[in-house]
């Protein structure tokens, strides 16, 4: 009787060893088994065999052989040739299916454009502040304050701590203090130029790679001298040398320019026009340096460490901070101090009281999220379509498998194809990217700090992104193809297997719904846009000028202007109607929280000239009464009643004023339309009036401006005249709103394009799949119309399902969410948008169907049948 070693043990070993070379080990095993068999009998020999196999499973020898086998595979020896082959076949296939290739490339490139923008921005932000000397060892001190259970992190730190650190910690070999409180309004030939700058020390130039063009850094130790940026120097003095010129500032008096900076790279979180020394302000005395703990905002400390870990510094810092923590404790605040690396500042964590331009990580993540939302549908379209055309590729896959291809070779083939498509898309998308980047940086806050140059790093990032997208997108279809069994594929009955069913139908419905939703959304927003432009404000905007009173004598101005025959009305206000209100006051309400109200100071003509309707009482506010008389809006009265005010005529304000309500005006949009109408109070106070609202009976705005200027110059010869059109002011107030609309519109356009392309792809696929069916129908005598209706039938069914989903969804979304946040002055979703969206998708889907049906039904049916 012939005896075998235990089969199961043998199999386990074989399975575990995989491709490893096992010939000699198996020989050894068998030999030992044979010896044991003679010596101990079958049972014991079997047991011993098992033991040997188990010992091998844990043996280093086998492990080594396995890893050797994995790295020296037969296929890897000529991978380059294989790769070239994949590439060649991919290019041929893409050429063969031109329509699909074009649709896919277009769809993916549109989808990628926003992602490229996000990537470029991320790459750009990561280069921020890298050019400073020894940048990886530079830190800044951060403060974490816990107050009332609320934890907040600040980029600034108490001067009392940082000056101590500089003195006490020897490993800090260079450091600089910065205080951002240096704002200066420069009077330049009558024009005011607002500048933002830092109080700092000469070591600023050691820590940061910012260089002086002229002058010396030592001036920062002296009062009355500043260093300005090249940009500001050009703005102020043009080509003239700015050095040693003096500038007149509102806050700091005369300052001498003792230095001009060279142009420095914009890729830094620092943003300033002007640098001054600490001695300029009296605030920074010895007291500030030694005991200013709780007042730490605007004070920053940057330092570089020499061969010492930051842990040590943190430890020393916390020892130094002990006395300060007590100071914070007195304010019920708990303070902790930490370090932040210079390179971690942008893009960094969300931090309060940041210096200069801030791009924090959470915002970047939202941005990445949005770009993924746009990209993912495009990727789905791609995989959807490539699985859909499996019919055409099934035979190829079958033959390859019969010829000895492994599963992974099929996967490589399709991945190479997808990556190729993605690379083409990224190339196309880069053009789009170059076009939109300018518009994009101008839309975001602080965008001017982003230059986004096309650098080698950026190009490599883009290519890497394309390859990653390709692999992620392609892996689904590739796995699908790799699964195809060669027998089925070659038997050519795959057509029944691959049809528009299940998931694909669902995706199609989803695409339809998305397109419809976005189209309705664009409609709603466009309507919103036009409504806001044509909204009837109570006051007239035409021929109305805003003259900045600049603190001059209002009575004088008023009398003079009213004496002119062409001027029909003059009134004064503390804020320009139609633009944002910045003045708040609080209404006291017993023990309850005070109510926030908007406050506008006016003169006694304002209500009448602005055509505000009175609901109750009088528009004539008597000034100089013992109890101040005020006019409020309806919203305020409503709020007062809600809050159960017992006395609705007398109110007390937080500022200590006691006021009597003498009139109620109808609600009107004093602020831009996207703001809710808030409780508002109109008060009389001549000293607060900053703007004169002047209406002139003259269509020629230029002439009117000149006329107003001549009057102004006569009254106040030394003060430059400043005036704008009310219309311009209102337009400016809407800027933010419009750029939001623009961004949404752009995203919607991208999404619509992607879903339309997906739609088109599915139609093309569905018709091509039915080539044979159409041919047979034609032979049996079907007309073209009946063919179209058969094909269209399915699409209309899906499309109507999509419609049923899209309309309620978009109604809910736009009406209740979007429009409400922008204040609903439009009507939200209307019949018109829905009709237009329905029509647009119908036309798109219909024309795609007709185009494709024409294509296949114009071919001789015998060709079609032979082709199959």
């Amino acid at each position: 009787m012939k005896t075998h070693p235990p089969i199961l043990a043998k199999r386990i070993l074989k399975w575990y060893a995989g491709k490893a070379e096992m010939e000699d080990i198996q020989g050894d095993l068998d030999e030992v088994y044979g010896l044991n068999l003679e010596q101990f009998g079958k049972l014991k020999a079997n047991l011993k065999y098992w033991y040997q196999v188990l010992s091998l499973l844990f043996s280093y020898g086998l492990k080594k052989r396995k890893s050797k086998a994995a790295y020296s595979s037969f296929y890897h020896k000529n991978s380059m040739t294989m790769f070239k082959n994949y590439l060649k076949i991919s290019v041929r296939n893409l050429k063969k299916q031109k329509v699909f290739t074009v649709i896919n490339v277009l769809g993916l490139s549109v989808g990628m454009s926003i992602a490229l923008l996000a990537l470029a921005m991320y790459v750009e932000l990561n280069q921020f502040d890298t050019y400073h000397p020894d940048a990886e060892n530079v830190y800044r001190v951060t403060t974490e304050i816990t107050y009332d259970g609320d934890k907040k992190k600040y980029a600034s730190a108490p001067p009392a701590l940082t000056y101590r650190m500089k003195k006490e910690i020897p490993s800090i070999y260079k450091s600089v203090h910065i205080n951002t409180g240096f704002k200066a309004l420069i009077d330049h030939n009558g024009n005011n130029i607002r500048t933002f700058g830092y109080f700092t020390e000469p070591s600023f130039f050691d820590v940061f790679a910012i260089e002086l063009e002229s002058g010396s850094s030592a001036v920062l130790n002296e009062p009355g001298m500043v260093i300005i940026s090249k940009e500001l120097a050009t703005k102020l003095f043009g080509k003239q040398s700015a050095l040693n010129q003096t500038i007149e500032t509102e806050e700091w008096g005369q300052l001498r320019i003792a230095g001009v900076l060279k142009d420095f790279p914009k890729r830094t979180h620092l943003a300033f026009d002007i640098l001054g020394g600490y001695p300029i302000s009296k605030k920074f005395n010895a007291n500030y340096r030694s005991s200013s703990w709780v007042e730490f905002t605007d004070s920053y400390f940057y330092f570089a460490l020499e061969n010492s870990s930051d842990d040590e510094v943190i430890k020393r810092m916390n020892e130094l901070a002990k006395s300060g923590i007590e100071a914070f404790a007195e304010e019920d605040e708990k303070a902790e101090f930490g370090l932040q690396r210079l390179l971690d500042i942008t893009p960094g964590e969300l931090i309060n009281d940041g210096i200069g331009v801030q791009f924090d990580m959470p915002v970047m993540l939202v941005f990445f999220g949005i770009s993924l939302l746009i990209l993912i549908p495009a990727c789905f379209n791609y995989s959807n379509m490539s699985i859909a055309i499996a019919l055409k590729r099934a035979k190829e896959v079958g033959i390859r498998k019969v010829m000895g291809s492994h599963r992974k070779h099929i996967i490589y083939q399709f991945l190479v194809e997808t990556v190729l498509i993605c690379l083409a898309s990224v190339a196309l998308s880069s053009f789009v990217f170059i076009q939109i980047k300018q518009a994009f940086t101008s839309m975001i806050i602080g965008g001017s700090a982003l230059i986004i140059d096309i650098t080698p790093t950026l190009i490599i990032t883009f290519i890497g992104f394309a390859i990653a997208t390709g692999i992620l997108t392609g892996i689904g279809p590739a796995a699908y193809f790799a699964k195809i069994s060669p027998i089925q594929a070659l038997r050519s009955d795959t057509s029944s297997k691959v049809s528009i069913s299940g998931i694909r139908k669902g995706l199609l419905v989803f695409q339809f719904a998305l397109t419809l939703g976005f189209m309705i959304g664009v409609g709603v927003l466009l309507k919103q846009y036009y409504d806001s432009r044509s909204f009837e404000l109570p006051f007239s905007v035409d021929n109305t000028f805003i003259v900045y009173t600049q603190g001059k004598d209002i009575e004088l101005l008023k009398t003079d202007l009213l004496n002119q025959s062409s001027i029909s009305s003059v009134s004064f206000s503390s804020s320009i109607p139609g633009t944002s209100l910045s003045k708040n006051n609080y209404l006291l309400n017993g023990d309850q929280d005070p109510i926030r109200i908007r406050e506008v100071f006016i003169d006694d003509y304002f209500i009448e000239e602005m055509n505000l309707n009175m609901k109750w009482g009088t528009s004539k506010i008597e000034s100089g009464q013992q109890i101040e008389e005020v006019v409020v809006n309806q919203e305020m009265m409503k709020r007062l009643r809600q809050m159960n005010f017992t006395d609705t005529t007398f109110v007390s304000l937080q500022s200590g004023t006691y006021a009597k309500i003498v009139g109620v005006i109808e609600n009107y949009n004093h602020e831009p339309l996207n703001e809710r109408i808030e409780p508002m109070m109109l008060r009389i106070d001549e000293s607060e009036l900053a703007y004169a609202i002047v209406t002139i009976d003259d269509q020629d705005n230029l002439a009117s401006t000149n006329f107003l200027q001549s009057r102004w110059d006569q009254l106040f010869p030394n003060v430059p005249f400043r005036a704008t059109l009310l219309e311009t002011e209102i337009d400016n107030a809407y800027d933010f709103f419009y750029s939001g609309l623009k961004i949404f519109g752009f995203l919607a356009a991208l999404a619509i394009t992607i879903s339309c392309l997906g739609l088109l792809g599915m139609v093309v696929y569905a018709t091509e799949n039915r080539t044979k069916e159409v041919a047979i129908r034609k032979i049996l005598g079907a007309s073209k119309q009946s063919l179209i209706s058969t094909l269209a039938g399915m699409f209309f069914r899906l499309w109507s399902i999509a419609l049923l989903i899209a309309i309620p969804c978009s109604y809910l979304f736009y009406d209740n969410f979007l429009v409400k946040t922008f204040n609903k002055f439009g009507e939200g979703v209307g019949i018109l948008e829905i009709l237009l969206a329905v029509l647009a998708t119908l036309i798109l889907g219909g024309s795609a169907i007709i185009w494709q049906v024409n294509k296949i039904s114009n071919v001789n049916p015998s060709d079609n049948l032979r082709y199959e």
Partner: protein
Amino acid sequence: MKGYLGEFEELVLLTIANLAKEAYGVAILNDISKRANRKLSIGALHSTLTRLEEKGYISSYLGEPTNERGGRRKRYFELTDSAVSELNNMKSLRDQLWAGSKINLSLK
């Protein structure tokens, strides 16, 4: 890579030297179990052989197909020059230690 030579590794090397042209897996295994009276598994032996090969002390080659192993080839091992010099080092170190021993190590 030359490294520290363990006791078992030294044993395997010397066994290979003893078996000379006949040093393949089972032969080594049997020789060691007989001489040293140790129980030894194939897995453990191959681990050691692989490590020795990594360290450059032994090399291996496949022999001719053999009948008794169902046509499978045997893998023969032989010592490299570095193994010989390392074994010599070990031996001289031992000899030195033996010679210098201050207490009597000889068995009576």
